């Protein structure tokens, strides 16, 4: 019952139009090897639910895979705004569901618990005005705090990147898990790329690092530097040069097509991608 799959096999069965969660946080642990494979497969009309992210949702939008996206936070921080997300928003070419942290957390937890909706406090923002499907007023008893109900966020598939896993699907994080675990509890199918596959004995030795027990996970994929150009839990840092080049390439249709051709279409398997970025090597061991 090994859950170890090739990149290509792991993504079988994702339909056009699927609701796809993306884990990580801004420049940390974006599931890029999985994202690039989605683009190679020319998936269309995806409905993204990204955790606060950067290049993972942005590249999918830029490559034309996305019809709708939730937005909690999509940013390129010191490199500016997310180029394709920004353009898609400003030209209204994709539908954006504006979310805040409480709504995504409440919606994911409702899905995890199989409840139709969750409850959050009303913060008096403009979010309910632009996203009335997500933020619904709750009839209030006298003296009761104003609340909103947020519908369950069901994910057809969730893409994550972590540091190591065994073949059974026990996934270990050396760093913070951000929304990854909560999203995994809300997803029908959880696919995790990891920088390396290790033995079950290794997993048991540092079992406090197992943030996704195998019962949460449907497939693991070995993809060293699978989060590149974002960081992976202390194994490698974000590649600022690559991120800056991505933003620059995103400036025109032509240069972005060249970027995609170089790093996605022209790198048919993940090993090709690693070659293109200079075959970096993982540190031997970096657990704590």
């Amino acid at each position: 019952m090994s859950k170890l799959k090739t990149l290509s096999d792991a993504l079988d069965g994702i339909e056009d139009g699927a609701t796809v969660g993306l884990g990580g946080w801004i420049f940390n642990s974006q599931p890029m090897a999985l994202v690039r494979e989605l683009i190679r497969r020319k998936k269309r009309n995806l409905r993204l639910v990204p955790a606060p992210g950067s290049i993972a949702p942005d590249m999918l939008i830029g490559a034309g895979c996305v019809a709708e996206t939730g937005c909690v936070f999509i940013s390129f921080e010191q490199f500016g705004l997310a180029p394709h997300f920004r353009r898609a928003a400003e030209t209204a070419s994709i539908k954006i569901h504006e979310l805040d942290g409480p709504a995504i957390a409440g919606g994911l937890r409702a899905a995890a618990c199989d409840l139709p909706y969750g409850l959050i406090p009303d913060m008096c923002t403009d979010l309910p005005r632009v996203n009335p499907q997500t933020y619904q007023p709750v009839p209030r008893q006298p003296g009761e705090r104003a609340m909103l109900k947020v519908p369950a966020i069901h994910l057809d598939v969730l893409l994550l990147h972590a540091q190591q896993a065994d073949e059974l699907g026990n996934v270990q994080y050396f760093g913070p898990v951000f929304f990854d675990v909560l999203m995994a509890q809300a997803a029908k199918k959880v696919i995790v790329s990891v920088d390396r596959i290790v033995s079950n004995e290794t997993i048991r030795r540092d079992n406090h690092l197992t943030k996704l027990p195998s019962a949460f996970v449907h497939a693991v994929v070995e993809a060293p530097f699978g989060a590149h150009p974002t960081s992976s839990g202390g194994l490698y840092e974000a590649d600022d040069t690559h991120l800056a080049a991505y933003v620059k390439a995103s400036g025109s249709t032509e240069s972005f097509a060249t970027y995609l051709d170089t790093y996605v279409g022209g790198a048919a398997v993940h090993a090709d991608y690693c070659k293109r970025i200079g075959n970096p090597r993982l540190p031997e061991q970096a657990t704590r």
Partner: protein
Amino acid sequence: MTDTDCSMAELHAVLLARDLRNGEKAIVGTNSDVQVAACNLARASHAPTLWWVSGPGGMINCNEPVIRSTARTENIAWSEAMMDLPQMVDFIDWKLHFFDFAILGAIQIDRYGNINTVCVGPHDKPRLRGPGTVGISALTALARRFYVVMARHDRGSFPERVDFLNGPGFLDGGTSRTDRGLPEGGPKFVLSPLGVFDFEPVSKRMRVKSLNPGVALEQVHKQTGFELLVEETPPVTAMPTAEELKTLRASVDTTGVLRERRRA
């Protein structure tokens, strides 16, 4: 260069640190260099038990004397504990486990201290699309106070009313914030390249607290999209002392992440 020359980021870190108190609890968001510096500078000087947690990563009281993004794994080795993110979302309430303060950036802030990090122009077809809300709604709504650090100060970033309100300040001013069921709180100071601003206690309108060295009041008025209150002649912002800068550079930001930024 005298020994109190500093960058704008260093100035902001020092101004914030001075206002933070021992025993307070804080949450530090993404894009966090100035926030981390302010918290650790306060801890290194007058507020050793100030408690802070990294919003994204959950690391608590990271005391590495190097400024890193709060999402970075490296912070774990220097922390007392980690909180997971859903636990933190639950933790941001205002009766039991309130946060004393948060420090935020924004695309726009208006006269009542409401902030916008979502978009300029209409939401369905914005002129400029910003990154989004993350924890800003909860922090501005539920922390006991918040600070806003603005990278720019012009009529676009200081409009009469934010184009999109995703961080409630004093809403429509006066008592409207508490009338709508939010707790007391709201913005305490706004720091911009031009000076420091606070809010008049009754009307909750933004007013000038001090002007940075070399900044004229007229210039501030011209670059602000609404009428700023001014009481008497505003003083010049009290710049970092040699002692403050020494602590900041020797014990908090030893690699000079803030110093490399633009001069104050």
